């Protein structure tokens, strides 16, 4: 089934600004469902969705699962350990087996860049990329952008800096594509050893010093520092990272403006971000999590062929999206 977004959501690179706005707009009416006592609408009733997680994930998997259940889809979770994957099954065989079970959608998280596309090219079901290697994590990018839009309104000209390990971050890539397409000014900040060498060709501003980034930015999206980066020799230590690149209250207080703080989680408190910043008045970290469910509902709904203008109605009770699937 191909809707307004095409068959799959593999990344924000391939979407237009208009398509991104469509997803954000579609997410708006879905936000309210999660605030109800009975958090369920029948928009995807009868659809079967597999959450195929080859990499560990708590937040993203649960967020997708809630989104699917609140749309009344039937869901199955498959994780790499305890499945045929741990017995050496290849991704292509996993894909063929899923296809043979006639499922409607696959949400895939995988450690290899390009894995979601690999799957999407080989099965007819809709594929949603829930993070592929260091490539993209489009729903995270979308929920970050939705959270920014909630606070800023139009993102055109707004200054957003992504801080940390850009080199290995799929979240950074999706944010850069999405924000750029909506007209925001985007910067990255981190040690050069954790920035792609070709970062200057991304069309983003680059800050080597976090103080300069804070001076410039209206919002900071602070990325998690993976501990394996230290053992791999990209940076010397977590302690030094905090001293040189950490988002601290003291650094933020030096500018006399409010700066919005985002973090895709899970946080290393005291490493990339200090607790009093994460828990502070300008942190929207929990709002991101709330928005995550709405964004994923919107993506599932649109990929299933739901009409964006019907999202409001679908939320009222009719399985309108389903009708469009026939």
């Amino acid at each position, binding site marked *: 089934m191909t809707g307004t977004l095409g068959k799959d959501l593999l990344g924000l*690179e391939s979407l237009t600004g208009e398509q991104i706005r469509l997803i954000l707009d579609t997410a708006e009416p879905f936000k309210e469902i999660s605030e109800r006592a009975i958090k369920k609408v029948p928009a995807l009733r009868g659809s079967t969705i597999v959450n195929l997680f080859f990499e560990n994930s708590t937040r993203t998997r649960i967020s997708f699962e809630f989104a699917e259940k609140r749309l009344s889809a039937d869901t199955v979770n498959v994780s790499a350990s305890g499945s045929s994957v741990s017995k050496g099954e*290849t*991704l*292509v065989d996993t894909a063929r087996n899923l296809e043979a079970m006639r499922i409607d959608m696959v949400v895939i998280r*995988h450690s*290899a*860049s*390009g*894995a979601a*596309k*690999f799957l999407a090219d080989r099965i007819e079901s809709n594929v949603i990329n829930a993070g*592929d*290697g*260091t*490539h*993209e994590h489009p729903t995270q990018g979308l929920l970050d952008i939705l959270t920014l839009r909630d606070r800023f309104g139009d993102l055109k000209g707004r200054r957003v800096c992504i801080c940390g390990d850009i080199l290995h971050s*799929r979240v950074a*890539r999706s944010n850069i594509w999405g924000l750029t397409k909506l007209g925001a000014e985007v910067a990255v900040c981190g040690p050069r050893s954790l920035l*792609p*060498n*070709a*970062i200057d*060709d*991304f069309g983003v501003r680059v800050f080597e010093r976090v103080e300069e980034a804070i001076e410039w930015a209206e919002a900071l999206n602070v990325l998690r520092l993976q501990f394996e980066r230290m053992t791999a020799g990209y940076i010397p230590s977590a302690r030094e990272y905090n001293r040189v690149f950490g988002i601290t209250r003291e650094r933020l207080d030096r500018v006399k403006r409010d700066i919005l703080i985002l973090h895709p989680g899970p946080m290393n408190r005291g490493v990339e971000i200090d607790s009093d910043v994460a828990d502070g008045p300008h942190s929207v970290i929990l709002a991101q999590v709330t928005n995550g469910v709405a964004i994923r509902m919107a993506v599932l709904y649109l990929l299933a062929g739901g009409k964006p203008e019907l999202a409001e109605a679908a939320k009222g009770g009719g399985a309108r999206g389903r009708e469009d699937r026939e």
Partner: protein
Amino acid sequence: MKPVLLKGGTLVDPSQQLNEIADVFIKDGEIAGVGRIESAEGADVIDCDGLIVSPGFIDVHCHLREPGREDVETIATGARAAAAGGFTAVCAMPNTDPVTDNQAAVGFIVRQGQRAKAARVYPIGAISVGQEGKVLAEFGEMFGAGAVAVSDDGKPVASAQLMRTALEYARTFRIPVIDHCEEPTLSAGGSMNEGIVSAQLGLKGIPAEAEEIMVIRDILLARLTGGHVHLAHMSTKGSVELIRWGKERGINVTAEVCPHHLSLTEERVRDYDTNAKMNPPLRTQKDVEALRGAVKDGTIDLIATDHAPHHYDEKEREFADAPNGIVGLETALAVVITNLVEAGHLTYSDLVERMACTPARLFNLPGGSLKRGAAADVTIFDPRVHWRVDPAKFASKGRNSPYNGMTLAGRAACTIVAGSVVFRSESSSAAGKGRG
């Protein structure tokens, strides 16, 4: 063996500065005459009208997988694929299983090559025992058994000391030491060129410098030792500049480039197509242009395929986990004609020089010339025919080609080794109108 008369073709033989319509008479496995030859008693006549007749192409860099991976290629299928691509001889890299690092293994390759009765197959011996980069293999015994060069191809010689010793020791046998230039700590984990595309795709890149550091190291070691270092599959503009630097100083360095590095860029990887994954990786347009210029001016001495067949399901997987390498024997000529000759970078004389004459000279092999008395290794090709690449029709067992589905110009019509026809195209005039 019946004599053969190649009638009416355009003879392109840079070894004699020939580029004109001329007949070639072959007798007893040798070139018996070149010029206007009306008839020859009892000879098979091959009509070469509209075709180019040249010294046989020699590919100094291919992987025939036998022994060890006969499921993906054998010496026989590889030698037939070579013949179908217009190659009269190929040099087989030693990264077999077991590694071709001793005289018995070298002798096995020689014998399997003779049994194939297709293109000639010359073994390349390993530089180090087991290609492990530690202990020097027995160059002398391997040379005696038929090895024409040494290389640890696929595994870069990380130790400068081992490379130095190899260059010194190889001098006795006057064979080139071939290096796969890759600084392993810089390239570790990489699966494509490092640049904007790798950064966007989230794939770990291999910087051009990983190659260039080893290129200059090897050139300096050649200067130190006086040995002949041959640099395999050059892929970057920087490498070209370093080789030029070395040659200007009279250092004994030679180099090769592959058709894919002359025709494709990192953009080809954008959809994670594992058939565009090889090592060294596809680079940028700037690199492609520098390499084209270097083939023209001789900074790069020759064109070699790095033919590397893989089983289809080994390639049918996540990009970073897929093996490196593509097949090249049956597309090399067409890729070079389409991208270099038709695009105006090379003449047919240049092509024959880089694919036949220079390989024979540098590796001290028969062929490379159609002078009277030379071995009758001849390639006859149709420079104008357009054809669509269909890997299912390859003589090679490998199907992993980035040119799949592309329409290319130029194709081998007939391949002759030591006076015997080992390949004849079904579609060309040389096939249809033969037999006098």
